[in-house]
């Protein structure tokens, strides 16, 4: 690989690469994102490759097989797209490969049965599918399209063009100004204005000359979230480019990619991307002949949730235990090795090249005032289309969950969404009605609009947070007490234990919830739990403890009735909390097959074949096996 000497060289190389492309060359893109991999995408990719290698294909030109990052529509994996035919196949199994090769690659026809269909409509290309149509892919534009292991692919897709522009046309001050004006806010959860953070670091470095560092936070500790993972795996060069631009603005010569250990593929893709970028002269000494030096190093996070906190990351990089310390001083004041340090989330960095390319004005045109640009969400839970979506900030919650997500299967609307990961909140579908029922709600929010707008400030007003972008959709069969308990259990394990409120308080809160889930406790206990939660919010040292009570506090605020149902009526309305439900066999429906009696691990179901079976409630452990095996759905939760 030849070094690119200057920006003109970059353009020439890109031109040469593009001209060498044969527009008729068939390209098969197999999604190798986390969702599809779990569904066997690797076998599909291998099947395509061996089909090509074995020269079984009689097409004019040999097709190119590309493995890509997550394409987004994970619930339909494995996804395979074909260009230039512009075909999009879903749920592809290795067995389907031969047919795709024979029909689409050799004869140019469509395999109808592998197209995505919904409500009777069939969609040939991804762009037509409602799930994709309502999205606005900017950060994810290349993810799922380019081969992340080939820098040439990134270069052809416009990679490092912003860097070239910045290095030749913009001063560091202009870059800073542009980020400030763009209104970009941190995507790592807090939504802190990025330009302000950079400005502080630059000012501090000027007052106190010496090295400055930039860090990308790729810890992504939220269970179930994979936004950052998809960017790192699918388009690592975008993050690298953003960091070089940031380093240029801040005068940093060294940066760190802090990636969690559980993301080996992201680490692998980054290391290849770094090597290729270095070989191309895009990283290292005298980048693109500009005289600016910058290099990046990958560091693995050991994977504790709290290690995603910025001061804990800095501690890890310095070789100390990954425990947070109090802020201020903020990293922009005293960060790595006591020097001004800018630490931003991976997605935040990936925004930077786009802002430089198209300008701050373009960026503020996306989204809403105070929350500009787009945001990536991982949409999971009780929703038809699960996957990775990118939407403009300020989209309504309904449009996101019901429009793009396709709503809850079999129900008219969703019950609630849990946003922002374990430290986020649970927001009900009918927020407006609930807001007027209780007395402690922000007035302006009621007046604003019925639909909850998904942006930093509106989310904060509900008591939840935008967080990293996890969005779990809940329906009537999800119990809020149980969900709050799940997240609290996670956080209790993840607490570093340095400060008392978090170390013991989370355990205490969990004890309250455990009692509630057993139907014990009094309404006063709910108030006590709320005040304990508030003590953690106010008293904890770092963001983990300060945000940990959010799921509990928001669920009490919006679903107090459900809590009361557990405590006062000893009922779990959603039918989840084991101690509060019983399984009954409906005599009308039971056909006496006896399957349940065979499967019951406690052997507490009795009855005669072809007659009615009944569950002995005393011995029943409420495992639900009978309900799962009953062929006629006679087992019901009461």
């Amino acid at each position, binding site marked *: 690989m030849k070094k690119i000497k200057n920006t003109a060289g970059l353009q020439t190389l890109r031109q040469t690469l593009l001209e060498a492309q044969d527009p008729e060359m068939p390209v098969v893109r197999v999604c190798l994102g986390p969702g599809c991999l779990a569904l066997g995408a690797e076998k599909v990719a291998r099947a395509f490759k061996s089909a090509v290698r074995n020269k079984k294909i009689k097409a004019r030109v040999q097709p190119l097989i590309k493995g890509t990052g997550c394409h987004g529509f994970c619930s339909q994996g494995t996804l395979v797209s074909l260009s230039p035919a512009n075909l999009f196949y879903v749920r592809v199994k290795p067995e389907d490969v031969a047919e795709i090769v024979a029909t689409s690659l050799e004869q140019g026809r469509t395999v109808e049965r592998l197209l995505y269909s919904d409500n009777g409509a069939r969609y040939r290309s991804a762009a037509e599918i409602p799930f994709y149509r309502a999205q606005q892919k900017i950060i994810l534009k290349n993810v799922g399209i380019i081969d992340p292991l080939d820098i040439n692919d990134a270069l052809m897709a416009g990679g490092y063009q912003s860097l070239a522009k910045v290095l030749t046309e913009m001063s560091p001050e202009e870059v800073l100004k542009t980020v400030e004006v763009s209104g970009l806010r941190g995507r790592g959860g807090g939504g*802190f204005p990025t330009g*302000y*953070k950079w400005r*502080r670091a630059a000012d501090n470095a000027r007052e106190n000359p010496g090295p400055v560092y930039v860090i990308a936070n790729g810890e992504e500790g939220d269970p179930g979230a994979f936004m950052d993972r998809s960017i790192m795996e699918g388009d690592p060069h975008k993050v690298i480019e953003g960091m070089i631009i940031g380093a240029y603005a801040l005068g940093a010569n060294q940066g760190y990619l802090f990636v969690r250990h559980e993301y080996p593929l992201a680490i692998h893709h980054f290391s290849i991307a770094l090597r290729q970028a270095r070989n191309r002269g895009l990283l290292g000494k005298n980048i693109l002949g500009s005289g600016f030096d910058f290099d990046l190093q990958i560091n693995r996070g050991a994977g*504790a949730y709290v290690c995603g906190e910025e001061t804990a990351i800095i501690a890890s990089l310095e070789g100390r235990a990954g425990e947070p*310390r*109090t802020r*201020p*001083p*903020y990293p*922009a*004041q005293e960060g790595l090795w006591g020097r001004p340090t800018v630490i931003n989330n991976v997605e935040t960095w990936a925004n930077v090249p786009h802002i430089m390319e198209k300008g701050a004005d373009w960026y503020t045109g996306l989204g809403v005032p105070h929350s500009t640009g787009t945001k990536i969400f991982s949409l999971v839970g009780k929703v038809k289309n699960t996957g990775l979506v990118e939407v403009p900030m300020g989209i309504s919650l309904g449009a996101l969950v019901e429009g793009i997500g396709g709503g809850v299967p079999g129900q008219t609307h969703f019950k609630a969404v849990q946003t922002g990961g374990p430290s986020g909140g649970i927001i009900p579908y009918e927020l407006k009605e609930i807001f007027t029922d209780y007395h402690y709600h922000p007035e302006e929010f009621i007046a604003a609009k019925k639909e909850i707008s998904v942006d930093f400030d509106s989310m904060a007003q509900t008591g939840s947070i935008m967080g990293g972008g996890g969005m779990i959709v809940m329906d009537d069969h999800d119990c809020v007490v149980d969900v709050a308990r799940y997240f609290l259990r996670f956080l*209790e*394990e*993840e*607490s*570093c*234990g*340095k*400060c*008392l*409120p978090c*170390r*013991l*308080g989370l*355990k*205490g809160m969990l*004890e309250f919830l455990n009692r509630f889930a057993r139907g014990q406790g009094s309404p006063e206990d709910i108030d*006590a739990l709320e*005040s*304990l939660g*508030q*003590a953690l919010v*106010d*008293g*904890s*040292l770092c963001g983990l403890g300060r945000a940990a009570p959010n799921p509990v506090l928001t669920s009490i605020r919006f679903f107090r009735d459900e809590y009361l149902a557990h405590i006062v009526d000893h009922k779990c309305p959603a039918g989840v909390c084991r101690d509060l439900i019983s399984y009954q066999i409906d005599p009308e429906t039971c056909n006496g097959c006896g399957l349940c009696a065979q499967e019951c691990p406690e052997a507490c179901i009795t009855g005669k074949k072809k007659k009615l079976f009944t569950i002995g409630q005393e011995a029943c452990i409420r495992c639900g096996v009978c309900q799962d095996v009953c062929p006629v759905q006679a087992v019901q939760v009461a």
Partner: protein
Amino acid sequence: MNAKKESKKPPKDNLVHFSIDGRRVQAQPDWTILETARAHRLHIPTLCFHPAIHPWGSCRLCVVETRLNDKVEVTASCLTKPVAGLEVLTHSSRVMNVRRWVLEMLLAECPASREIKELAAQYGVTSTRFAILDPEEECLKCGRCVAVCHEVVGVQALTFGSRGVAKKLETPYRVPNNACIGCGCCVSVCPTGALQARLDTVRGDLSRRTGHGFAH
């Protein structure tokens, strides 16, 4: 980055002027809120703070409410530096809520400590709703001993092992530590006397106790 913004024109005396519970106070430029309060003989309860070591911020007993313009925060006074015009409240309802819960937790964390019982009683906290794991325990993991050993004595004979609720005061690798010079600084800074009973699990070779094994 809502950090301190020194007022544009610092008063001639170079002090930071702010208020604690309505009283005007002045801080030297590098003082924390707690240090300022102490200098003015205003009481804020503390446990993990000790003047000989860097503040660690683990006990959270010293929290205060701070107000500046419309920004209201609850923060640890032992770590926070004041800014000009700051209003500090040491007994607001949010502060007292944290303090009472912390004391209730402490009653469960170190039920054997007389000091903690007395302190809690001063705030009307006499029983705890938290589960007591070890009725004999006195250590509250405040971190004073670890810090004094490292920062003042200059060795690292003590550390915290495990994390979360399992966090424990230990010697590195859980073996008696030869780095320990048996000075007893840890014992003297321990707010509850928990270290008294543990010192023997810290010190290494017997020869060190008699003193003749010091020089390597």
